[in-house]
């Protein structure tokens, strides 16, 4: 079963990381990601720009576009992984590995994926695309 691991943490706290700290965390996350990819289990991963870059379109209010993320919360959605897992326990295990690579006060929300379309882009995008 495919699972979505949604990463939540405080952008404030992450924004206070030193450049070295950030590099170290990204390197450790990269290792977990690579291992999952080598096992043929990683369907995709995305890191989102800060929630300050977000706008939100409200359907009910005549398609009003407002500035900011959908919900103002203490922790923000920072990104997600899509991983093939042999059941919930295996998905929790992957989240644990990610949490060791990137410790803190945040959380991983683990959601089974009902349907997934791999899309047509066929290439990686962004700063750690390679």
């Amino acid at each position, binding site marked *: 079963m495919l699972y979505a691991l949604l990463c939540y943490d405080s952008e404030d*706290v*992450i*924004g*206070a*990381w030193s450049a070295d700290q950030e590099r170290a965390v990204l390197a450790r996350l990269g290792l977990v990601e690579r291992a999952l990819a080598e096992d043929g289990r990683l369907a995709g991963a995305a890191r989102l720009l800060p929630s300050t*870059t977000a706008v939100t379109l409200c359907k009910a209010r005549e398609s009003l576009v407002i*500035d900011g993320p959908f919900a*103002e919360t203490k922790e923000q959605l920072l990104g997600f992984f899509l991983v093939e897992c042999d059941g919930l326990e295996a998905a929790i295990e992957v989240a644990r590995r990610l949490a060791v690579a990137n410790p803190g006060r945040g959380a991983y929300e683990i959601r089974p994926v009902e349907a997934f379309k791999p899309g047509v882009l066929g290439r990686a995008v962004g700063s750690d695309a390679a």
Partner: protein
Amino acid sequence: MSEMASLDAAWIDAAITSARPQAVAALLRYFRDLETAEEAFQDACLRALKAWPKNGPPRDPTAWLILVGRNAALDGVRKQSRSAPLPAEELISDLDDAETALAERLDGDHYRDDVLRLLFICCHPDLPATQQVAVALRIVSGLSVRQIARAFLVGESAMEQRITRAKARIGAGDVPFGAPDPTERARRLSAVSSMIYLVFNEGYSAGGAEVKARGSLCEEAIRLARLLLRLFPGEPEVMGLTALLLLQHARADARFDDQGEVVPLEEQDRGLWNRRMIAEGQALIDKAVRHRRPGPYLVQAAIAAEHGRAERAADTDWRRIDLLYGDLEQLAPSPVVTLNRAVAVSKTAGPEAALALIEPLAPKLSGYFYFFGLKGGLLQQLGRAAEARQAFDQAISLANSAAEAAHIRQRLDQLAREGG
């Protein structure tokens, strides 16, 4: 487990740093005295370093620090008056309920105005710009006096004095504790935005060996701008400011060569530009433009984004940059803006037209390094070597850093070679 503990220390550090502006701001509202607020926060941090590794991190570190800081300061008052004994330990071990109540009160406009007030008092009109910056770095960002002294290239005791004096000025003035009305809020936002821009410029204008010491000021300014943007998510000029800082800082690694010499924009290795910052800056511009109220920060950000978009210097859309500088001249007319526009004009219409544009600026910019740098360059392109040399000589005498002077000397050497 021991690895977790050491990682926790890094987390505690980041949590305290990120909580500081909100926590000090709330404590300032509570005690109405900057000194007390800072001491209370300091006290709370010391307790956090003891309590968090033992009891686990609190759900809301900011609320925890505010509550514990407030209680610690109140205890201090009580101790002085020899009244009630201290109930401190239970307080620290069982905060959850109180924390929730406080966290709820922290949300919303109240909290937003707290942080704005804290930033705003650093912009005291009696304080010269560099002191505003120093005070903001000390109070809001929580940099140590030593760090700030290093960034300003002065001794620690001199900086200590400067900050103490500035804080005394702030303390003597009226700190505006009332909730601001929309006009007042806009006024504060604008003052605070300029102050954040000043913090950035202190870092950005550094050259050569100073870059390492002062570059962190740019990151600090970006952090403050993001904080402001989270508090005022619908303000296009705050989006513009944040975008501008990100887009300029994205070029940090390419702006100086190994010898610390300035590398002009056109010669920079664009592979060294930080693509993530450029993407974030562009995303903020896209949002801000939808408000259809462009302000000076947004237009400057849009100019920086034009450079960021060009994969090679030759791909730069100078016509569009010329138009944007035209907008900026309308919004915030200044000879420096016109000078910058002249660079775009020299690309679209040639050096002759650019020279004609900047010549009327001479009386106003007679002490400005970049004026003579650009003038020399334009004259050089027109083959007027003697006049170019004269302008370059003047530029060197006005250079703000050794790196700037060295760059102009290179141009003089080039001129000498061209002349045979």
